[in-house]
Every structure is written in structure tokens, then in C-alpha cells.
């Protein structure tokens, strides 16, 4: 370090702030902590009130909600039953058509075999 740098070092020597600086810092820190605590408890209280209000509203609307759920469930069940009945009817119709087809086929075969016998005779 040369002379100029040493002179600069001396010129930039540390200085002391006011004698009450530490006290002011400690007071400001304590005040900030206090206000943070107050704000936090206010937030907690506000949060608790928000949840309590929502819970009470939920309890008030619970019977309506239950009725809605039951009605929706009933409608869904009815719709499902209707679909099932349609499926059964469709299946029965297909079975009936197959039986009728088989009967018609055997009657046709009998007619053909009688016709053939008459032609031989």
C-alpha cells in the first residue's frame, strides 16, 4: 500500500454514530416486533372468524345440500333403471326373433322335403 492509499485509509476511518443510536435501533426493533405480533394475532383472529363464518354457513345449508344430493341420486337411479329395462326388452325381442326365424326355417325345410317326395312319386 503506497502513501496515497494510506492517506485514503486514514481519511476513511470509521466514525461513530450518535450516542443514542443503539437505543434507537433497539426501540425500533422492539416496536416492529410488537406491531408484527399484533398484526399476526389480528390475522389469526381474522382467519378464525373467516373459517367460523364459512362453517356456520355450511351447517345452515347442509339440509338443502343433502336434499339436492338425494334428488340427484334418485334421478340418476331412475335413469339407470330405465336404461336397464330397455336393454332387457331389446334382448327379449332378439330372442323372440331368433326363435321365429328357426321355426320358419324348419317349416320351409319340411315344405321342400314334401315337394321332393311328390316329384319322385
Amino acid at each position, binding site marked *: 500500500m503506497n502513501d496515497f492509499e494510506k*492517506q485514503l485509509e486514514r481519511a476513511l476511518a470509521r466514525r*461513530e454514530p450518535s450516542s443514542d*443510536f443503539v437505543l434507537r435501533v433497539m426501540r425500533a426493533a422492539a416496536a416492529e416486533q410488537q406491531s408484527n405480533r399484533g398484526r399476526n394475532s389480528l390475522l389469526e383472529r381474522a382467519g378464525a372468524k373467516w373459517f367460523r363464518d364459512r362453517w356456520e354457513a355450511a351447517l345452515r345449508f347442509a339440509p338443502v345440500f343433502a336434499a339436492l344430493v338425494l334428488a340427484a341420486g334418485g334421478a340418476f337411479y331412475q335413469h339407470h333403471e330405465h336404461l336397464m329395462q330397455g336393454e332387457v326388452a331389446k334382448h327379449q325381442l332378439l330372442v323372440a326373433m331368433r326363435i321365429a326365424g328357426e321355426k320358419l326355417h324348419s317349416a320351409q325345410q319340411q315344405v321342400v322335403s314334401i315337394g321332393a317326395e311328390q316329384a319322385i312319386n
Partner: protein
Amino acid sequence: MDVVLSAASKTLTREQPLALPSFAEAVEANKAMVFSIAWHFIRDRAAAEELAQDVFLELHRHWNTLKSAEHLVFWLRKVASNRCIDAVRRGKLHRVISLEESAEPTALERVQDPLLSAYLERMVASLPEKQRILVVLRYQEGMQPEEIAKVLKMNVSTVKTQISRALDLLRTKTAQRLRQQKEADTR
């Protein structure tokens, strides 16, 4: 054997981080450092005290994140430097204070040439922001360029170049001033 053990314990002590003091002790121990960084940067006693107070309040908020006494000093230097630059950039400290107007704080050590020292202080305060904080950290805090680079998140080479430029500027201006003073004295 004792010599070896003692040497080992010395090494261990040196490598172990120093325990964190209490908040009040930290303020008491570092108030001159933080205030002086702000004072040499902005040269306004009230603004420098306000800035230093803000830095310590910020420290109070981040107290639980600090790990050791070294970390505490590093953190204070970093936050104080950044706050000084931010304050000037935001135009918060646009008022230019003349030396006559501002009360001179008590120096911790006696200066050899008070006039030259006062002039140098003013000159440092007139440097561009980055160069100013680099000079303050280098010559007030006696920090090495590597340490300054870590605190200000800069390249070591940039730190060295900027300090060298600032010194050239200060040297030229001081030489001019001394020449002018000599001429005035001879008249």
C-alpha cells in the same frame, strides 16, 4: 506433544466459526462499521444514521438466518452497501450536502493531515456509485478485492480495475488541488 495439541487447537479455533452474539451486542459491535459505510457513501449524517438503522432493523428480521459472527459481518457489509447504492439510485438522497453544512462525526482515530483527509473524503463521495462503494469497502473496511467481489457479487478483476480507476481519479484530482493550493499560497 503439548505443542502439537496447542497448535491443533489453535487451528481448530481459527477454522471454527465464531458464535453469534446477541442482537444488542451485534448492533453495538458493528454500528461504527455500518454507519461509516453509509456516511462515507452519502455524507449526510441524518441520512446515514437512518440508513444504518434500517440495516439493523433488516438484520433483526433476518436474525434467525445468520450462522456465525463472520456471516453477520459479511451480511451487514453486503446489505449496507446495497442499500447505499439503492438509496442513491432511487433519488432518495438527491440533496447535495456541502462539507460546511454537515456536522463532522467524531473520528475514531486521529488523522495526520485533516485538510487533505477532509478533501479526500469529499472526493470519495463524488465518485460514481460503484467505484465509491468499492473504495469505501477497500480503504474503510480494509477488505481484499476477493472479499469485496463476494459481498457485491462482482468479478474480482472488475473490482480491481474499478478500484484502480477510482484511485487514479482521486490521485489526479488531489494533485490538481494541491497544485492550486500551492499557487494560491505563493501569491
